[in-house]
């Protein structure tokens, strides 16, 4: 046997081994199932795969894929604003993973929307055919489209370094400041507008969640989501991709966790305050005793006040483990909040038989979309300089 053949032989064997990892098997089967569901959705219509109805036109794909997706993708603007605008250089290593997650998050939101809207190929219509400028959804759509572009440009240096396009990369890096400012402006607008979408339905959303402050609530909680996601995701990445991280990334991780934990504690405290002001403003104290009130208190005390306190304790004691668990808890709290506004406290006056609960196919499609995100994230961080600085571009950020 010649050397050449031996080498190819070895390659094939290792190839088979690497493909059949647990990760690939699980993600592969989810994606296969997702493809089947996609075919169903686009050949049989929304009625065949979802539990949506005339009373409940928005379901899991809006409540989770859109509202939660956008909130949890807030790490990009929060981190880049802290580093590039407020000069917190010690968090620099957190920027690229956060921007990547943001970019993937928004890309997935748009991807998920093509499942939910009736005629997805018309998604550009509000821009090119007729502009419904009185709609907050128009603002959301415009900002998300622009911000996706901004995140794409912010992310560009990584693939350009990977591909070795030095000149273009330099141009992309030079845009950083302008892109960061634009990113904060667009994020402020659409994060808040997602909450403002519900300003038009005081008669359908439970008064404890309905408030003229909804846009403020959504914006402030997006900062909390962004900070917590950076910690949460950093923890996961450190667990699974430690071999990809350079010394700077590994060393700065502790500082990022402590600093972001402290910021999250403070912002949560502020958020708690304005949420209480929301109850007071609507004079909804008496509603706290109802069953919806108890659920509201679970959200407010369990997922806002408690993590604010735990973050503070974790930072004071330099207890990284506590901070990381608190970050995961806070992320769960954001999920609960968005589902509350969009689904659980929405249509609260309807009898139970007319309420919405997602079908398993809706849940599976959401899982499929998240899985696609994880697979792409994994591909990118194993190929491109995300967790380490490219040796040829050290200190040029």
């Amino acid at each position, binding site marked *: 046997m010649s050397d050449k053949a031996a080498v190819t032989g070895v390659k094939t064997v290792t190839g088979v081994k690497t493909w059949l990892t647990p990760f690939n098997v699980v993600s592969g089967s989810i994606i296969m199932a997702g493809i089947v569901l996609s075919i169903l959705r*686009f*050949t*049989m*219509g*929304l*009625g*065949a795969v*979802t539990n*949506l*109805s*005339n*009373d409940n*036109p*928005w379901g899991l794909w809006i409540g989770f894929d859109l509202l939660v997706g956008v909130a949890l993708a807030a790490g990009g603007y929060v981190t880049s*604003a802290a580093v*590039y*605008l*407020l*000069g917190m250089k010690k968090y620099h290593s957190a920027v690229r993973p956060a921007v990547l997650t943001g970019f993937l998050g928004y890309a997935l939101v748009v991807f998920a929307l093509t499942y*939910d*809207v*009736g*005629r*997805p190929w*018309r*998604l550009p*219509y*509000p821009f090119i*055919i*007729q*502009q*419904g400028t*009185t*709609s*907050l*959804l*128009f*603002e959301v*759509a415009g900002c998300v489209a622009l911000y996706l572009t901004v995140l794409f440009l912010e992310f560009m240096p990584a693939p350009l370094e990977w591909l070795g396009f030095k000149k273009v990369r330099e141009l992309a890096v030079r845009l950083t*400041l302008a892109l*960061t*400012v634009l990113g*904060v*402006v667009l994020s*402020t*607008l659409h994060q*808040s*507008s997602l909450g*403002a*979408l519900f*300003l*038009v*339905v*005081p*008669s*359908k959303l439970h008064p404890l969640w309905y408030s*003229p402050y909804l*846009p403020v609530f959504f914006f402030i909680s997006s900062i909390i989501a962004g900070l917590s996601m950076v910690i949460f995701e950093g923890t996961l990445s450190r667990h699974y991709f430690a071999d990809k991280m350079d010394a700077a990334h590994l060393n700065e991780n502790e500082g990022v966790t402590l600093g972001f934990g402290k910021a999250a504690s403070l912002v949560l405290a502020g958020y708690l305050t304005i949420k209480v002001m929301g109850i007071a403003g609507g004079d909804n104290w008496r509603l706290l005793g109802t069953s919806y009130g108890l659920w509201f208190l679970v959200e407010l005390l369990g997922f806002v006040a408690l993590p604010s306190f735990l973050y503070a304790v974790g930072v004071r004691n330099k207890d990284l483990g506590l901070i990381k668990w608190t970050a995961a808890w806070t992320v769960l709290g954001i999920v609960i909040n968005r589902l509350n506004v969009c689904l659980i406290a929405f249509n609260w006056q309807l009898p139970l038989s007319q309420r919405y609960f997602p079908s398993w196919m809706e849940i599976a499609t959401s899982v499929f979309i998240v899985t696609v995100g994880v697979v792409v994230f994994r591909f990118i961080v194993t190929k491109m300089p995300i967790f380490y600085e490219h040796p040829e571009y050290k200190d040029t950020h």
Partner: protein
Amino acid sequence: MSISRRKFLGWIGAAGLGSALGKSAFAAGSKHFEGHPGSLGILHDITQCVGCRSCEAACARENALPVPDKPFKDLSVLEEKRRTTAADYTVVNKYEVPGRKAPLFVKKQCNHCLEPACASVCFVRAFKKTETGAVTYDASVCVGCRYCMVACPFEIPTYEYDEALSPRVMKCTMCYPRIMRGEIPACVEACPKEALTFGKREDLINIARERIRQYPDRYIDHIYGETEMGGTSWLYLSSVPFKEVGMREDLGVTPAPELTSGALSAVPVVVGLWPVLLMGLFAISKRKEIVFREELESVKKAAQPPIKEDI
């Protein structure tokens, strides 16, 4: 960054032109929209309705809606509370009111708001409040986001969930095509009683007031739709409080667009202020860094013996 005078004047010019051309984005202030003058409406006198479903049949025929499983003559469907669907633009519901011998029947369909929520939230302007009073829908631009259905306080718009490629939002058009031909809406024409009256909205309000004045025992003193959600083109008279016949009395009088105008007017504020504040923060952090470096240098210099340089 340096700004030349020419550039600055250009920006100011563009901003001036932009604000001069657009319509006002602010809540109306002292203005109050009371509907297009002379616009049409329908008065539904609940006390006159016998629940025969003739209006439903006429509506389905006029709009070429699918034939239902049970014929329109079958009144057993009235035993269940129904809502509008993609196959029924209008439904009649029966209400047994405590203390009354005979049940009451109420027709339900799009109320054609004076300032419709569906039109204000549609990001592609598929809905239009026409000068006739009818709120129309243009399926040729609709993306299918269903925000109109979320926003409608009367839960009227419906959706063709089983259409894979061309789902439409379905709702009563007040027979806009017929109105344009000079005819009256099909449901009004079909009504065998005096339960539906078609005419100019302001006339209908006067008729309704007159009925209340003449028969104070028969009617409660409220015209539903006169002020609800800023007013609707459909108006209702009833002998019992409207909430007893399935109509919400807690909707308020604020038109839907006013609920969101505040949030919309925040957009230019954010766009105008954020960049200035953020660049200010950036300048401060940059300045701090420079001062820090300078101080570091001077400390270093002070620590080292001065080196003579040739000039």
